[in-house]
């Protein structure tokens, strides 16, 4: 019987993978559901005896089976999009059945955990420090240092919390990992637990990912005995973007409003229920299982550039022809990512701007596409790599509108705890509107005789630009967390690089 491999990743399903699988089953094939290669423009991707076809619809089935299909793309593993990558975290993508313990073990699964448990906890922490792994959630804090702090902290209990609240637009690597290789995350959490002495772990997963929820529930049940005595519980969020911020996430786990906490104390000292807590992103924890395998730390450390070591799963999204998951060592430029690998825009029009790092990331002009993918290089350019999402826009985008959207999004998702974010975001959207309208006339109150300090001549566009810059500075320096603190990145980067979209 012909064996047909089709992904059951949510993106493949959204493009009709179930219907295609059904059609192959009807045609008498043995259909195996595997994880996704991450070549999203080819989904549903079908693999038969090592040869790939995509995107395949139910109508293509007979042509694929009799060899006359024009959708052949050759062996998926040799496709240039995959061959140019160096996959460590996504090494199993496209190759294994997500919930098969046999497949996981056969591809090196649990090696990191076995080795970690044979080492003293301090040695495990040292290896993570040595690998140079930094938090993949966005802040880029060295994971080993965080672990060392938790290991040294005293508390009645310690926790490992996995931040799987991947709310940034343009990011889907966490989702793909949880749906495609859930045991790797579980293994990483168990290693972290051994390293810091934690007995309980939580995965906080957003409710917008129903397939990831189902996969992880099953995977946790299957792996229960392997990670024992460490216990992991899955908690599903309730639709609050701000809960991706670590302290807000901890409050939500405790059953409170997802409001941000002031730091200090750091969660590593006083986190969940006041106990020392490791809060790491999905990709950070998943990377640990590779790092703790024999020779893994040295290998990880040997990749990358500057202080950004190892590989980064970059997500190519938005208006791009070849979108998907691209894991490479740090240092690659946006030009390579978008032009060479991504193939330019899906619409075929010129690229106008690229937002890197989610809704709080700066918009980057094509003039700066040589910027290397690196935490420090981005920070120096007033930008951030965040969770590694790259959203491409073609020349039809109105950057003034995008700046307004950034403020609007912040207003809708603000937790309300600090004033710069809660009020600043709404006022910010209004100022962007006024700038685009070219300033405004003085209103009735301002023209009253007793309003001595109010300008009587209205406000010019330039006055409002200065006001917006001032507001952004206040939000950046005065907000409690990255939501209010980083919203100025997309706003100011748009304003400064595309003034013509702001009525100039």
């Amino acid at each position: 019987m012909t064996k047909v491999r089709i992904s059951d990743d949510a993106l493949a399903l959204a493009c009709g993978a179930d219907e295609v699988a059904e059609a192959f089953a009807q045609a008498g094939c043995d259909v195996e559901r595997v994880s996704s290669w991450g070549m999203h423009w080819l989904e549903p991707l079908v693999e038969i005896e090592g040869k790939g076809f995509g995107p395949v619809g139910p109508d293509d089935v007979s042509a694929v089976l009799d060899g006359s299909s024009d959708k052949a793309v050759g062996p998926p593993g040799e496709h240039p999009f995959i061959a140019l990558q160096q996959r460590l975290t996504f090494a199993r993508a496209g190759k294994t059945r997500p919930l098969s313990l046999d497949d996981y073990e056969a591809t090196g699964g649990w090696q990191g955990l076995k080795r970690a448990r044979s080492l003293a906890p301090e040695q495990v922490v040292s290896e993570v420090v040595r690998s140079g792994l930094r938090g993949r959630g966005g802040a880029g804090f060295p994971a080993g240092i965080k672990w060392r702090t938790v290991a040294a902290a005293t508390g009645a209990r310690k926790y490992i919390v996995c931040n799987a609240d991947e709310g940034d637009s343009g990011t889907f690597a966490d989702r793909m990992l949880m749906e495609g290789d859930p045991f790797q995350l579980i293994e990483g959490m168990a290693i972290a637990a051994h390293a810091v002495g934690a007995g309980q772990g939580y995965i906080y997963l957003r409710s917008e990912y129903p397939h990831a929820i189902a996969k992880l529930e099953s995977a946790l049940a299957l792996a229960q005995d392997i990670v024992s005595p460490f216990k992991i519980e899955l908690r599903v969020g309730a639709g609050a973007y701000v809960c991706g911020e670590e302290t807000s996430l901890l409050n939500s786990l405790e059953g409170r409003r997802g409001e941000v906490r002031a730091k200090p104390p750091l969660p590593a000292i006083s986190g969940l229920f006041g106990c020392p807590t490791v809060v790491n992103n999905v990709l950070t924890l998943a990377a640990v299982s590779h790092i703790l395998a024999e020779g893994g730390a040295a290998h990880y450390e040997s990749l990358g550039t500057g202080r950004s070591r190892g590989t980064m799963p970059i997500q190519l999204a938005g208006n791009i022809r070849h979108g998907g998951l691209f894991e490479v060592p740090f240092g690659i430029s946006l030009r390579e990512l978008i032009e060479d690998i991504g193939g330019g825009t899906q619409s075929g029009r010129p690229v106008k701007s690229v937002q890197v790092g989610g809704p709080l990331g700066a918009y980057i002009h094509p003039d700066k596409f040589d910027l290397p993918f690196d935490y420090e290089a981005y920070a120096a350019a007033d930008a951030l790599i965040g969770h590694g999402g790259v959203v491409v826009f073609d020349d039809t985008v109105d950057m003034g509108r995008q700046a307004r959207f950034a403020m609007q999004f912040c207003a809708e998702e603000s937790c309300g705890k600090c004033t710069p974010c809660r009020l600043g975001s709404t006022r910010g959207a209004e100022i962007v509107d006024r700038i685009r309208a070219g300033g405004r006339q003085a209103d009735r109150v301002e023209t009253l005789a007793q309003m001595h300090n109010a300008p009587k001549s209205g406000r010019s566009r330039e006055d409002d630009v200065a006001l917006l810059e001032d507001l952004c500075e206040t939000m950046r320096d005065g907000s409690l967390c990255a939501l209010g603190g980083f919203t100025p990145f997309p706003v100011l980067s748009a304003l400064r690089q595309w003034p013509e979209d702001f009525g100039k």
Partner: protein
Amino acid sequence: MSKAERIGEIVAHHASREGPLLPILRDVQAQFGCIDEEAEAAVARALNLTRAEVHGVASFYHDFTDAPDPRPEVQLCRAEACQARGVEAIADAARQAAGDRVRLKTVYCLGLCSAGPAARVGDRVHARLDEAALVRLIETA
């Protein structure tokens, strides 16, 4: 079984968890389609919290509502990646197709960012939507 009894069961089911309020509220929302005053009071009693505390939490999250809405729901992603792929140009048609019969909810990111515009109905997700496909999805919801 009365509503209070059913809520008592839900609370008992989660009682052994640490910080059980969010899982409880998720189940109440799923069971009754909303978390109304009566439900808040019942949960508060069972957990020895004030109703204000429970209301504070229930009103914070987008997934929780205070009144039932029996209409079918279609979630349309309108975050940046879907904007870049043209969701704003088809949002009006979606609104018209939804009318009063379907609840069209804007969400920010379904994680299908390389294949937008994307939408979700129940636990089924849909990508690469054009205007016709989105309207059809809403009409058959």
